[in-house]
């Protein structure tokens, strides 16, 4: 960005060019950091403090952390990670083929625009009402059980459809699908069709083209999709609360109940776990893509 204008740039003394943005950058950077980044630093620091009779005691302690390690909260962390990674994997399997089809096989422009609109709308839907519908579908007396009973496929209602890990997974798949499709779709659209044709002309079959041309070039989009799916999943709250029925306790629930029980340092520590876990997962992803980068640059060398 900006490189195109460099040749035509006037001497820097013409500050008028920057008006009224001259002060915008530093002012914005400072206030935005205070607004967004400082609270995150504070919440991490807060996990090392304690509360005594509703007042903060400014004396560093590891009490909250030892309590978390001793108590069964570790299971919650593991469960959250397991469910978040499972859903991310499912979304990737659903989204990549679909995004590839949208980017390279879907010929109708208006159909594509319609799908993009359909994928965008869910970002703007009320979460609780979207998720609570699943109750009336999955309940013991709900839609699916009634249908199966009436068709004579089952004799007694299936109990595990609602208030189970199954229900939580099921409710999440729809919610987090668009977040995975969009980045992958964007990166696939940017791949020049010439590369794909060239691969075919040189005798590569579709699977080879996918493996050696499309996947490496789409990697940034795939990584972005994984991140944008993982981020909300690590603190998912509405789905486990409404569909788990108290049986599927995730970090999001724990943070919420800790806040309601006025256990603020515990809530801070659990939030810190979410932030650290996400940070580690992102670093691992970027490392993985770094190794893949070898393939991509190799491809670029061959291309020349």
């Amino acid at each position, binding site marked *: *960005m*900006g490189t195109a*204008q460099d040749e*035509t740039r*006037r001497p820097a003394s013409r500050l*008028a060019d*920057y*008006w009224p*943005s001259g002060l*915008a*950058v530093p002012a914005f950077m400072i206030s*935005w*950091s205070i607004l967004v*980044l400082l*609270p*995150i630093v504070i*919440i991490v620091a807060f996990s090392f403090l304690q509360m005594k009779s509703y007042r*903060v005691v400014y004396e560093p302690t590891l009490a909250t952390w030892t309590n978390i390690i001793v108590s069964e909260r570790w299971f919650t962390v593991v469960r959250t990670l397991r469910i978040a990674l499972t859903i991310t994997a499912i979304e990737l*399997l*659903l989204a990549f*083929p*679909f995004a*590839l*089809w*949208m980017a390279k*096989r879907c010929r109708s422009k208006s159909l594509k625009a319609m799908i993009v609109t*359909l994928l965008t709308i*869910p*970002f*703007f*839907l*009320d*979460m*609780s*009402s*979207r998720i609570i*519908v699943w*109750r*009336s*579908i999955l309940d013991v*007396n*709900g*839609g*699916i059980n009634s249908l199966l009973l009436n068709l004579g496929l089952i004799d007694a209602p299936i109990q595990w459809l609602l208030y189970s890990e199954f229900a939580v997974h099921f409710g999440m798949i*729809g*919610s987090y699908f668009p977040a995975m499709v969009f980045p992958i779709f964007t990166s696939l659209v940017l791949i020049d069709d010439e590369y794909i044709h060239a691969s075919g002309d040189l*005798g590569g*079959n*579709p699977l080879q083209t996918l493996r050696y041309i499309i996947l490496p070039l789409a990697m940034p989009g795939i990584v972005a999709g994984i*991140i944008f799916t993982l*981020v909300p999943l690590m*603190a998912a*709250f*509405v789905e486990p*609360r409404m569909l788990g029925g108290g049986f599927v306790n995730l970090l999001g629930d724990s*943070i919420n109940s800790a*806040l309601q029980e006025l256990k603020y340092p515990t809530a801070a520590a659990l939030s810190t776990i*979410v*932030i650290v876990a996400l940070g580690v997962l*992102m670093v691992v992803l970027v490392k993985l893509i770094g190794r893949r980068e070898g393939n991509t640059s190799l491809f670029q060398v061959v291309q020349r």
Partner: protein
Amino acid sequence: MTAAAIDTDNRNADPAMRRVHVRDHLRTASRIAVLLGGGALALIYLPLLWLAVMSFARNPLSGIPMPLTTMHYQAILNDVRWVKPLLTSIALSAIVALVCMIAATLVARAAIRMRKPGVMLLVSLAPLFIPGLTMGAALFISLRMLMNLTLGLWSIFLAQFIWAFPFALLMVLIVASRFDTRLLHAAEDLGATPWQRFWDIEVPLLRPGIIGAGIFAFLLSFNELLRSLFVRGQDTTMPIYNWIMAASQQSQVPIIFALTTLVLFVTLPITAASFWYVFVKLDKS
């Protein structure tokens, strides 16, 4: 279809046959892809349809929509506790949208003039990498516990602004990155004042992005729950009202179904139409 199968095809068949095989495989693969994606879309939209149907059922949480009744819609008319949260949400979202439009325009036009906007953009987009609930908890502990402030509409505004601004910025940036700053130099040579250059040249050219930013910010703010929930103080927005009704009081579920159906009935067409506008406009510019 396996790699081995395709390899055999490659070796045995003549080129024409091979092309036919490849086309068949691709068609099967396409069908599977459409099936997977369509299934996921169905998981999003069928529940919405079910929501609308069950809002007319006597017991929305039962599996059968019969007997049909409009009693929940009458209940909404009689119990008007939802009106205030709705009005709060509309007013708050409008303010968030307006502030986002202004801030995003200022930051985006600064970004395209910078040699290395990378760090600033990364910091701007930071909220996308922080889960909503975590951000909400962090704001609550910072504002309430550390600074001892009384939370309310102002803190809900901050939480929603944090969420909406990155998207607004991206919308303006899409348009602004294609903006040719030479136009401004030309205008300057022709004697335009800085304000004229900004208002008569930059703003009209950036308008699709700015309007898109406003639409996105309004809708994101209107439906925001996870960040607002903890910093709401004594105030309630529509999503918070829905959440409280849906999460705690079983008896209020029918009202939620009817109310959400009405809200969706109004917002879905508007949302779809705005996106159509945004996508078409951005496509043209």
